[in-house]
C-alpha cells in the first residue's frame, strides 16, 4: 500500500487526561513496527496549523478526547469526519473546539484526507500535570487496540517491536522533555 498516512495525537499534554491522544500515539510509535511509512504527528494544542496535513495526506487519523455529558468516562468512539461533524459537537477543551472548526474549514478545500477520529471520554482535564486518571488507565489496552485496528483497516500491518516501552516511560518523556537527552515526541 502506498497510502500516505498520518496519525495525529491531539490535546494538551499537561492537562492530565487531555493528553491521552498524544500519549497513545507516542506509545504506538515506540512499541510497534509497521508495513508502510506512517507519519506520527505531535499535534499538541495545534488547531489550524494542522490543516496542511489534512490537505496533503490521503488518510489522517486524529486521536483526541471528546468530553460529552452522558457518556461514561473511558468510552472510545471511532468516527469518520462527517460523523464527527454531524453529531452533537463535543467540545469542552479548547483543543476540541479548534479541531472541530479546523475540520469544518478543511471540508471546503479541494482535497481533504479521508479522516477518522478516535476519541475517548476523559475524566480529569483540569489538573495541571502529565498523567492519566485511573478510569482511563483501566481502558488503556482496549484504547491502543482500537487505534491499531483502525491502522490495520487502512491496510497497514502492525507487529510489536519488542521495545516494551511502558505507559509510565511514555508519560515520563512528556513530563521531562530534554534537548540534551533527545527526549521528545
Amino acid at each position, binding site marked *: 500500500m502506498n497510502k500516505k498516512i498520518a496519525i495525529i495525537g491531539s490535546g494538551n499534554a499537561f492537562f492530565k487526561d487531555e493528553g491521552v491522544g498524544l500519549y497513545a500515539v507516542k506509545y504506538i510509535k515506540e512499541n510497534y513496527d509497521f508495513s508502510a511509512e506512517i507519519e506520527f504527528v505531535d499535534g499538541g494544542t495545534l488547531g489550524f496549523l494542522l*490543516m496542511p496535513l489534512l490537505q*496533503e495526506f490521503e488518510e489522517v487519523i486524529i486521536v483526541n478526547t471528546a468530553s460529552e455529558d452522558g457518556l461514561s468516562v473511558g468510552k472510545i468512539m471511532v468516527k469518520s469526519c462527517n460523523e464527527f461533524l454531524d453529531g452533537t459537537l463535543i467540545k469542552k477543551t479548547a483543543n476540541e473546539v479548534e479541531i472541530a472548526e479546523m475540520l469544518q474549514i478543511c471540508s471546503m*478545500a479541494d482535497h481533504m484526507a479521508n479522516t477518522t477520529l478516535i476519541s475517548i471520554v476523559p475524566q480529569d*482535564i483540569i489538573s495541571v500535570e502529565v498523567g492519566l486518571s485511573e478510569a482511563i488507565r483501566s481502558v488503556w489496552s482496549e484504547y491502543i487496540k482500537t487505534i491499531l485496528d483502525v491502522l490495520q483497516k487502512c491496510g497497514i500491518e502492525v507487529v510489536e517491536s519488542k521495545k516494551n516501552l511502558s505507559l509510565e516511560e511514555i508519560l515520563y518523556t512528556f513530563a521531562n522533555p530534554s534537548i540534551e537527552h533527545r527526549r521528545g515526541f
Partner: protein
Amino acid sequence: MSKKHIVVDPITRIEGHLRIEAVIDENNVIVDAYSASTMFRGIETILQGRDPRDCGLLAMRICGVCTGTHYQRSIEAVEDAFGVTIPKNARIVRNLIQGALYVHDHLVHFYHLHALDFVDVVSALSADPAKTVVEAKKWATVAGVNPYIDGESEFKAIKERVANFVKQGRLGIFGNGYWGNKHYKLTPEQNLIGVAHYLRALDIQRDLAKMQAIFGGKNPHPQSIVVGGVTCVQDIENPARIALFKQLLADGTKFVKEAYLPDVYMAGTVYADEATDSKATFTELMEGKGVGGTGGGLLNYMSYGDFRLDDTGFYKAKTLFPSGIVYGGDISKVQDIDQNKIAEDVTHAWYEGQKPLHPYDGQTIPHYTGLDKRPDGIAYLKTAEKYSWIKAPIYNDTRVEVGPLARMVIGVARKDERITKYVTNFLKRGNLPITVLFSTVGRTAARAIETELMADIMVEWADELAKNAASGDLTTWSEFDFDKVSVKTKGMGLAEAPRGALGHWVRIENGKVANYQAVVPSTWNAGPRDYKGRMGAYEASLIGTKVANPEQPLEIIRTIHSFDPCIACAVHVVDTKGKELGVYKIDTQCSI
C-alpha cells in the same frame, strides 16, 4: 429605562473559554461590557524546577497557534539570563521562522476566522459573475495591482461550488452565520469575491505553513531553536532550501498583495463610516476626546518591539518593529518601554493576591469564587468581584492594547521609515486619514499592512542569510558555560507574537527554574477590569457600539474578532430575563 444584558458565553462548560457580557441601552448601544475567560491555565507551575534549557519544549505547549513563538520566547528569556548573544545566522533563521508564522497566521485569521463577519456567504449566491470581475478589478486597482482572480468563468465555478455546498447541507463553518443580518453591507458581487478568496486562501496557507518547516525542523512544532542559537545548519548551507523558502514566499506574497489587501480596502471602504464615527468611541464617551471609530477602545498602544536587524544583542539591536507606548491615540508622542513598569493585577481575576505584581514576582494561586446564579436560571459574572481566569496586566498604571495595530501605531509614532512607508501607502491609496486605524476595521487593516510588510522584508532576510552562508560563515550557536551562568540569574524574553506583546520571565537558581511567568498578548487584550475598575482592551472596544439586532450580536463578535482572540470560545445570547435568544459560535485560534 430598559437596559438589556447580553451574555456571550461558551456553550458546553464553565471551564470554557471566552465570555463577553454586555449591557445595551434602549437604543441598542453598548454601555457596559465585561470580558472573562472561564478556563484556568496554570501552566507556569509546570516549569518550576526544570533545566532552563528545556523550558522551550514545555512552553511551546502553552498555545495552539504561536507554539513556535512561545518556544522561542522561552529560549530567549534563558539566553537573556545567561547573557548569551546568538550568531547572525541564528538571528536571521529565527526571524524567518517567526516571519513565516506572522504571514500564515494573519492570512488564516482574516479569511478563515474573521472574513465571515463582513462577508455574507448566502448573498454571494445571487452575484453576477461578470459584474464580479469588474468589482474585483476595481478594488485591485485601489491597491495598485491586478486582481488575483480575474476570470468570469472562475467566479462562476466558485459560485456553483458554494451553491453545491448549500444544496448538500455541507455549509460547515458557513452554517453558523447570521446571513441576511442588515449589518452585512457588502454587495452580492463583493461577497462572491470574499468567498472566492476564502477558498483560495486554503491552498495558500498550506504553502505558507511549509515555509515555517524549512528552517523550523520537524513540522508542525518547530524544534530547531536551542539556547545559544539554532541547529539547522544543513538548511543554511544548502542554497536549495533558501530558494524553496523564497519561492513559497513569492507565491504567498502574490496572494497577499492581489487578494488580501484589495479585500481589506473593499471591506474598509464599505464600513468606512464606522471607522471614523468617533462619537461611538470609548474615549469620546469616557474622556470627551474624539479620534477613531467604532471598536477603537483604549487607544493606548504598546509594543515590546521585535525582529532584530543586527547582532548587538537583546534590547540593544535595532528592530523591525520598534518598542514603545502611545497614549490616547496621540501619535505625536511616544515613550520608551520600561519593563519594570509591567505588573499583573488580580482584583477581578480568580487568583489570590493583594496588589499588582511584576512578573518576576508573579504568583498563580487559583481562588475561584464562581458565578452569580440568578432566579432566571442564568449564571452571570460577579462583575463587582472576581470574574475571569485572565489576570489584568497593567503598564505604568494604565491599560493598553497590543497587536498588529499597536505595532503599526508605534512604528509611525517612532517615525520608523519602513513602517511609515507601508502605513502611508495604504492610507494614501485608499484616500483615508490615519485616524481610521483606531477602530475595528482599522485593527483589521493594520494586520493586513503588517502582513505585506513582513512578506516583503523576508525576501531581504533570506538573501542576507544566503549571502552570509556563501561567505563561509556557518556558525549557528554561541557557546556558554552552563554551570557558571546558571547559578543565580534572571532573564526575560520580551518581544512580539502575531497577536501582540509576549513576555516570558524566568528566575534561575542552581541550574533550575525558580520562578516562571508568561504574560501573553490575549492577557493584555482580554483581561478584566483592574484594581481601579479600569477596563481591558476588549471591554473598552465594545463601549458605544450599536448592536443592530441584540439577538444576533454580529457587531460584538466582529470587534472581538478584530483582535484575533487567542481564546477558543462559543457564545450564548440571552436577555436580562434569561430567555435564550440565540447561539453563536466565535471561531478562534489558540488558547491560554
